[in-house]
């Protein structure tokens, strides 16, 4: 770090390279944060998380009992120890809450005064975040597993909805009704993602083992169906080509939109070229994955080897995207993890699990520096000294003397 700063000062290294190096370092060194917490208020398993796009300030989470919570992530106390407080929540008792489990929540990408939630009660609700009232409520035919809004398509406000019906439905927020149905899957659709690069491209994954790429401008036929085995994409084989040997329950574009990761119940993760549809043939190994619903997973942003954070039952695996190397396993949850998201500004990961926790994973650089700082200023109050001493004491070996004999 010091060397990098020195190089930067002497003009050897570009500032962006320094930023990238530091980001990468942090993204690699994630661990359960010792200093920061997210207030645990959830009354049942947390299914979905989302950060608001503009500021990355508010964390939105949807629960299995139909409640929705919003936490404030910003720490203005000046101390590394901080618990993110709950700002507001949609109670289960309120009339506007979802009847059954909330499967997916998402902020409106251009304004955090609006968010969309959907769930097993077959309803897509558009909320006014300020007064926490649903502005619109759209009933669909199937139970909704995931919905997604394009982060770049500002002209059109389309929400792609993946539900237990085999059609992918595009809901136009402006009119409040369906604009398209994308027909191509034969099983229920578990996941859908808009491309962050092309505003009309959406990818969907389904129970029929297929991953299909659509151009919403021509809803008559799909653009591409990813094929696991053959690299040459003939149109004839597209109808039968499968991307996985099991349900596809997770999709994620890289931040630049060039690659698409798909996650299946065949315990595999596949990396695809989003333009050519080629399988990149990266072997991530066996990743236990048994959930029959959508799993949210994330990739790091602006790090040099891009990292993927993939929930697998109670753990989160960290992979290097292009080599498939398993970097780390994040151990923390006590039951299966439903989703995780990456915070691009703080290089942190938030994960949500069935054990009613949202865990915060960070490199804790800030806290460590702060600790060093407090240690260097030795003559402080006796109280704090004791606390520091106590804290150190906890992690020491304490073999008693009677074992010597």
């Amino acid at each position, binding site marked *: 770090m010091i060397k990098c700063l020195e190089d930067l000062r002497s003009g050897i290294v570009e500032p962006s390279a320094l930023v990238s190096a530091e980001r990468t370092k942090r993204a690699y060194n994630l661990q*359960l*944060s*010792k200093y920061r917490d997210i207030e*645990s208020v959830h009354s049942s398993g947390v299914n979905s998380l989302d950060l608001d796009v503009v500021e990355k300030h508010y964390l939105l989470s949807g629960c299995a009992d139909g409640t929705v919570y919003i936490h404030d992530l910003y720490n203005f106390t000046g101390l590394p120890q901080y618990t993110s407080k709950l700002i507001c929540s949609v109670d289960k008792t309120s009339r506007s809450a979802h009847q059954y489990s909330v499967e997916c929540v998402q902020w409106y990408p251009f304004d955090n005064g609006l968010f969309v939630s959907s769930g097993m009660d077959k309803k897509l609700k558009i909320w006014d975040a300020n007064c926490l009232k649903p502005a619109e409520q759209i009933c669909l035919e199937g139970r909704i597993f995931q919905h997604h809004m394009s982060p770049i398509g500002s002209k059109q406000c389309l929400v792609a909805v993946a539900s237990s019906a085999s059609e992918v439905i595009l809901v136009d927020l402006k009119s409040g009704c369906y604009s398209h149905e994308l027909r191509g899957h034969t099983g229920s659709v578990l996941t859908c993602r808009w491309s962050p690069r092309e505003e009309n491209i959406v990818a969907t994954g389904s129970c029929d083992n297929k991953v299909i790429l659509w151009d919403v401008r021509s809803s008559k036929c799909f653009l591409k169906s990813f094929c696991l085995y053959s690299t040459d994409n003939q149109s004839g084989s597209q109808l039968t080509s499968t991307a996985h040997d099991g349900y596809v329950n997770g999709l994620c574009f890289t931040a630049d939109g060039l690659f698409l990761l798909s996650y299946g119940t065949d315990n595999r993760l596949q990396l695809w070229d989003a333009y050519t549809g080629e399988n990149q043939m990266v072997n991530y190994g066996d990743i236990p994955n048994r959930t029959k619903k959508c799993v949210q997973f994330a990739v790091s942003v602006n790090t040099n080897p891009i990292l993927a954070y993939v929930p697998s039952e*109670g753990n989160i695996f960290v992979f290097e995207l292009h080599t498939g190397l398993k970097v780390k396993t994040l*151990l*923390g*949850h*006590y*039951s299966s993890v439903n989703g995780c998201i990456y915070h691009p500004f703080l290089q942190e990961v938030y994960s949500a699990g069935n*054990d*009613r*926790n949202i*865990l915060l994973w960070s490199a804790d650089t800030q806290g460590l520096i702060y600790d060093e700082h407090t240690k260097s200023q030795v003559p402080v109050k006796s109280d704090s000294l004791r606390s520091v001493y*106590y*804290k150190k004491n*906890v*992690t*020491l*070996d*304490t*073999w*008693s003397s*009677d*074992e*010597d*004999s």
Partner: protein
Amino acid sequence: MPSPLDTKLCQELAQHIEALTHTGQKVLEPTLIKKIKQICRSSEGYVEHAYHLLLHQLGEQHAEVRFSAFQIIDELFRRSHSFREHLVSDMQRIMELTVETNPNNCLPPPKTAAVNLKNLALRSFHEWNVQYGSGYKRLQIGYNFLRKCKNIDFDNLEFENAIERARREENLRHQQIVNEEKIQKVLTEYNDLYEEIKATITSLENCIKLLVPSLDDFFISCDNMDESDIDTFNSELVVTSPHLKCSNKENKVDIREHGMNTNFSVEVEIKPVASVKETAENAAVFENARDAQRLIKNRYIPRVKNWLKVITKCSGKTDDIKKMVNLKDELEKSLKNCDRLDISRKNSDDSSDSDLEEVPDKEGYEEHVVEEHVLFAQSSSRSEKPTSSKKDWSIFSKDNNEKDPTTLLSTLSTLQTTKNSHPSCSEHSFATTSSGEQEVKVQKTEEIECLPSTSHNNQSTQSRKQKLLSVAPKLPFDIDLYHWEEEKLAAPTMLLVKPDGARFWSATSTDEMEEIVVPEGAASLRTRVIEFSGRHEPVKWACRAPLPSGKLCPRRDRYKCPFHGPVVARDSSGKCSNPEDEARLKQMQEEEQQKNPDWQDPKLLQEIKEATGVDLKMPEKGKRKKKSDQTKYPGLTDIKAKQNNAYTRLAKKVFKKGSMKRIAQSLDNADHKRFRDKYGDQFNYVHETS
């Protein structure tokens, strides 16, 4: 990186841990745990090794092993940082193994140890969290997970007990309410009926009083009673106690006036049961008493008894119980009085209770059928009884009758009469006829003797024949005799009846019918079936060789028991009563043992075992090789021990394969029958069912 681990130390560690976890004790042995700590202290590598060993022990399917393992874990957790790190990273699994966070993965038996383990683990988690929670984030999360998601109250560690207690209390409360209700019901019933019962009792008592006045009444009435009253009394008392009356009178009168001696004695005989005759005058009283008695006997006493049962079961107040008991005593007393008076006797004679009414005998009905004419018929049918027994066949049929002209006897008798009337009749011709007859006759020699056969030369041939005949075998008539004289026998044939369709459909001519030869051929006409004529003698003795169970062998073989060899005489304890037999049997047994190959000599095997450590002994026949944990770790509770409780015993019977099969079969049959009854006569279904 720490220096490589010493394998010897590792082995020692493993041995210690194994020994410590398999003691089955609740408290760890201090010397062993000290040794383990000592080894772990030397390097972090050993800590890790110990951790893995302990985790393996924690996965054993035995709660006692897990309990001990967790105790060691607790000890090491409070010592070593690296142990804590390892454990915290595996916290989920450890929780699953100790406090059954996964409902599909329950704690293994024995149950008490499992409960102890759970309590210990929860207490330890709590202490760990208080002590080390600040340093190990995941420990904290796990603790919160247990508290929030598994609803474990760490303050008093009564996670499930609370629910159970609540349920128990609820049950108790419910039971109490039910009891209250029952008691209340009984009391209201009691109050309702009390007056009625009392009234019945008093009415019965009054009736009795009327019928049999008590002694007090006597004395009172005797003083100031006018004649007529006394008379009426007497009229009753004459019946009841004549002796008593007599003595009473005598008290009043001077005995001398009656010409009696002063020193005479009067024997008063008091009948234990006073009997009162029912007359037209007291019929109403009797009726009344009977009614009351019946009411008490059939209605009130069972009712009161029932009340008492309910009230004692529901633990009612003692006052109530006392009241009931008093009432019951009263009822029983009055009933007893009644019985003594024998009021109900007439009642029973009336048999108004009995459903069966006696009907007067019908005229001309005979209970016993007279068998006279049958006997007569039997005797008359055999005026001249043939001597032959029923079994033996004779040419003379048993029904031979003189009056029947077709029978031999009749001809004989006619011949006799003709001979008697015409003695000069040619004897020769007659003799020939008689001798010709005798060829046919087999048995009836006595009768034949009475026939006239005076010719001398015939006499000798006849005696020779008789001799021969007595030697010749006597056989009943059968198929072989039927064909006796046919020299060449054609093999018998039979006509094959074609099974398809009736004869209406096929040609009727016999030509087309297939004729086949009976497989045995002509021999079948020459053979004779002879039934076994010997008598079955049941075996009167059992083997009675002593069995390992202490009983005697119950097999009843005639000569040799398949298990214990030849059957010999034995005494009541199963010992041979004949010493020779015993010696013989012993010898045979020894021979049997000798059959073991010589390399199975126990001495040789022992030597081999000592030298090489290999046990070459053949497993004993019929005994399965069994090396249970029980022998290995005597301290542990045997969880595989077969449970011999009522459930398993019943299950063994109920779920036996045979019985299941039988039941399934009968159910199937019932189903099939029902189906057939319903649809059997419908054309569509007939083919499907059958």
